[in-house]
């Protein structure tokens, strides 16, 4: 049986019947890095805040680490870095971590090494005695990350965790997420920076206008369009004329005096041998066949446009 750290059934949080998130049903497997993708205002943060009990759902149910989200117990082994990270600026970094450590139930003797460790992990060692009001935005995000890691959580929600970080900081956060994944932690990553998520996520969910469009393993979702990149000899263009129906689209990517590169879209997976058979029978000089994987951005746009198209059709039908 699959082991999920998050399971939701039609979870909704709406404001006067609008905005927020609607009928979200998803499962997040233990040990995964789950990327929750969506445009600004799509409902990503609303979903996370509902999971953490900051917002009360208007409908549906959810379980986190085996406990209903209404119970305090569901948050015992959870870390959270909010999108709007604001901390009491009159505290020093270490005072903030000490208060959080106390709330996590860490004993006085256990606190020191844990705090030292998280400070090192987020790159704030040596700055912990400064007041938070003197921290840059990036440092505040780092101290927030340290807070999220304090309780050695099994599940960590990171809501736009690199929004205030410089490129080096972003790379460090990506490495930290990979490290957490290697430790068997589950990371729920909210972001609209698709390129960043692509490198760390193994599961993704796409949310659009408050509704979950699709979710699942990134590897599977990235094959939304079976495509191959064909490199043919310059004189082989004729072989691509009037191809069988399973080739839905073909586009010339680039060409020079000797070679031509084509992007060919197939109607389903497993058509590549048939395609090659046809091309070779027509005497094409096939230099290279590479299966094309969609980028996260392409996958995201594919599903969002598909959803928009469905919504448009439904809207049109309702008016006819």
């Amino acid at each position, binding site marked *: 049986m699959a082991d999920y750290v998050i399971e939701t059934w039609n979870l909704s949080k709406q404001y006067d019947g609008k905005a927020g998130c609607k009928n979200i049903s998803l499962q997040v497997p233990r040990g995964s890095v789950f990327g929750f993708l969506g445009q600004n205002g799509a409902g990503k943060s609303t979903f996370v*805040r509902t999971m*953490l*009990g*900051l*917002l*009360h759902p208007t409908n549906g149910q959810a379980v986190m680490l085996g406990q209903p989200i209404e119970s*305090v*117990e569901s*948050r*015992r082994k*959870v870390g*959270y870095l*909010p999108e*709007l*990270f*604001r*901390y*009491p600026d*009159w*505290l020093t970094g270490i*005072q903030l971590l000490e*208060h*959080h450590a*106390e*709330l*996590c139930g860490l004993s006085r003797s256990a606190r020191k090494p844990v705090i030292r460790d998280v400070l090192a992990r987020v790159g704030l060692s040596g700055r912990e005695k400064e007041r938070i009001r003197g921290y840059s935005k990036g440092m505040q995000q780092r101290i*927030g990350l340290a*807070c999220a890691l304090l*309780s050695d959580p099994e599940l960590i929600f990171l809501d736009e965790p690199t929004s205030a970080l410089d490129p080096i900081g972003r790379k460090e956060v990506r490495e930290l997420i990979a490290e957490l994944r290697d430790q068997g932690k589950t990371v729920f990553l909210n972001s609209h920076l698709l390129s960043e998520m692509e490198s760390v996520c193994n599961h993704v969910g796409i949310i659009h206008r408050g509704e979950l469009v699709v979710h699942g393993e990134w590897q599977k979702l990235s094959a939304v369009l079976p495509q191959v990149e064909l490199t043919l000899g310059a004189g082989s263009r004729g072989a691509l004329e009037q191809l069988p129906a399973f080739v839905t689209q073909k586009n010339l990517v680039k060409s020079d005096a000797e070679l031509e590169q084509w992007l060919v879209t197939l109607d389903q997976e497993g058509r590549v041998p048939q395609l090659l058979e046809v091309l070779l029978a027509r005497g094409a000089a096939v230099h290279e066949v590479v299966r094309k994987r969609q980028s996260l951005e392409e996958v995201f746009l594919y599903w969002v446009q598909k959803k928009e198209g469905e919504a448009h059709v439904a809207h049109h039908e309702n008016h006819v």
Partner: protein
Amino acid sequence: MWPIMKITYREMLSKRIFTITILMSLAFLLLFGVATGYASRELGDILGNDAESLLQRSFLSTQLLGMGLYIGSFITALLAILSSVGSIASEVESHQIDTWLARALPRSKYLLGKFCGLASMLALYALMMFLGLLGINQFVGGGALAVPFSAGQVLSGLGFFVLMPIILVCVSLLLSSITTTVTGGIVLIILYGISFIGGFVEQLGSIVGEASLVNIGIISSLLFPTDSLFRKATIALFDTADDPLSFASQGLFGSTSAPSDAMLVYTLFYGAAALWLAVRLFARRDV
């Protein structure tokens, strides 16, 4: 709850309003001490030892201390309002509360932790203010202006004086948990003002024998009962209002119309109900 209490202490001490209030309170006590010292010296010279002089001396001493206690109670109330009305609302507005509440911490514990922290700090402040004023009256006022009272009277008066900011914190937390800092602050200051003015109107009505004015005072006390606690404190300290020779019933800061014990019970119930409501409503609130 203890970690929230601790952070509440730290927050209060770090806020400029607390430091300013402490400094202004010390300035007020100094001024009160100087005034008491001068008054004591002057009155010692003017008043003799005959019965009339003794009555005059007693009247003046209770009036001076009553005035000090009134202003002390006003400062304490302002500190209670300003330090507690934003304690939850401002954290919700700035989203500072998110990381605290995302922990395995029931909201009731968060709110009660805030209450215990604020109430204990303000109770300590009120205690210092009360004892400071009494100390000045006793030691600076000397023989001429020292109000004679027993330890029981002091304890009883202190209890009422300290209870006032605690009740204010209860109501303040209720407002802070359901509305914004500005709205809560305005509502609370208006309520306190109603109680403040209502107290005067009631005393005035009692002096001129106008029942409608007394009723207005009673209604304002029911709406917000902090003024009746001040009246109770002065009565407990100076005398009983039923005594025809009571000095507690005279002058601008006296209590001609004494709040009943039922009013005291009502006040306690009022505070407890506000706190209970705050816990209930905050648990349901989206932050």
